[in-house]
């Protein structure tokens, strides 16, 4: 934390690291879900036995419960918010309808997770989960790599 938002933006080292840590956390969850989905397709484990899929469903339940602004008044922005923003990003607009485009996508993923937790997910739902979490995994890894790129290394000819 800093005294002013000016400092928050001007001195980005800590901000970048915090953001990278948050993205890593979200990405690790996505990787675990994808790993368990792959093992379930290999017949090694049932999706109903996957702690990662159960955790993901809990996260989506939390997102569903905090879908309006009143829940943001008294808590720090968390992983659910980051995930919601990621889902909303392509459709973001400035007139307040940014969340609308992603809402059905998040609801669909939540339904698919709920089916997977009970071991009753259809092929279409499994595909949907793989598609969604692969996108999260890729995006979070890219973000973390960009945020951490060049740390501790020379950044231009003048520093070599």
């Amino acid at each position, binding site marked *: 934390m800093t005294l*002013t938002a000016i400092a928050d933006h001007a001195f980005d080292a800590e901000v970048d690291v915090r953001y990278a840590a948050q993205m*890593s956390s979200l*990405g690790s969850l996505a990787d675990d879900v994808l790993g368990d989905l792959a093992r379930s397709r*290999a017949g*090694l484990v049932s999706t109903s036995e996957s702690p990662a899929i159960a955790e*993901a469903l809990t996260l989506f339940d939390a997102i569903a419960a905090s879908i309006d602004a009143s829940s*943001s*008044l008294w808590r720090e922005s968390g992983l659910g918010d980051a995930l919601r923003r990621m889902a909303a990003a392509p459709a973001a607009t400035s007139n307040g309808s940014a969340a609308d485009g992603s809402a059905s996508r998040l609801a669909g993923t939540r339904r698919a997770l709920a089916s997977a937790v009970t071991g009753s997910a259809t092929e279409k739902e499994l595909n949907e989960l793989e598609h969604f979490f692969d996108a999260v995994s890729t995006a979070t890894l890219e973000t973390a790599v960009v*945020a951490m790129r060049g740390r501790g290394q020379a950044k231009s000819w003048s520093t070599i």
Partner: protein
Amino acid sequence: MPSGRGGHLATLTRHTLERFYAEVGLIESAITQADSLPEGDPKTRILANAARKFERLGPQLGILHIVVSRYRQAIDRSDVPVGLQHLVGVLMADVLITPGDPLINLDPDDNYSTVDLVDLLDRILDRGLGAKSEYTKPHPIAFNVPALDPANALLSPLLAHEVAHSAVNQKLLAELRNKDSGRTEQLLLSHLQKSGLDLTSQAAIEWAERFFGWCSELLCDAVALALCGPSFAWAFAAYLPPSTVAALNTHPPLRDRMAFHLAGLDLLGWTPLMSVHSPGVLAWMRNVSANPALTNSAEEAFLREAVEQLRAEIFQVAMDHVSYRLEPGDFERVADEAIVGLRAGIPWVEIGDSVLSTWQLVLAGWCASFAERGDAEISLVDASNDAQYNALLVKALEMSSVVLAWRGDGNATA
């Protein structure tokens, strides 16, 4: 290394590395399991997933590397005055809820700020649900202070605001929410309706998140005011001169905060003392804070009204949290002698039977600087930039800690 000199950073680093080793073990198990499968799509998927997890460990280890490389020199450091170390110790004891281990970091740019490194490192390998940390030792808390001016005693109240963030996140915001009883939500709804928005819009979420930021900052300011009295408001005005630029961001505008500081100091009973020691500076602060730079946006109207209706509760929550509030009456009993001593360049800390506390000394330092330099806003900046004078104050803080430790051992009479 004993707690109190940053040695717990090593403990936390080992704890984090063990989590990395466990992660690698899990990935290797997945690969071994995949090796037993026939060639085909499932095996390829599992191995690709393992490769992705290995790749993710790179930036994750990078975060740990940054933390260790940035703060390692702050462990057991002996190049900052004892007075500053004592002050940080007092702050941690008075404000933090969970035990902490301070790292005084001389930082070229990220100051003043504090970071709970457990909070940061726990996020690296978490799976998203914010599970309670398994780390149970004292949290290494980084105090980022100006690299070229780490022991600026007059600006040290700024650290009180920073340390308060930890307590605010852990407890005080929840207490404020209980006192709010849904009023802010009603206000938000009412302002959104005026703008043709509803609670589910992205703009509404941004308004709410900004309200969260404003409340957090004002709670921290209130804690610092309760601990340090007028010193915090003067340090704040010296370090962050009140801007005339109208803008909305995660922190309330500087002039609004100055108004908040004056209201809090009045509530705490400090106005008479400020009228005696710095009537000119007080008049300047009242004038500046009464003329905020406005954006005239709907969001600004909501934010201002929301924090205004919670102002009394913010101060109440902060005052209830601070165990050793600086009291005007206590300070007035020792102020004259302390100020005379400091103006003479003598770090007096024993007055009668009393030992000047950390924040009494800093406040006496400010009052003495007004007496010496004149009662004008320029003295705020001049005094805080006076390295020699700040060194005297830090020496006084050191002497105070020595006397208190001596008396604590029973080797001195009260």
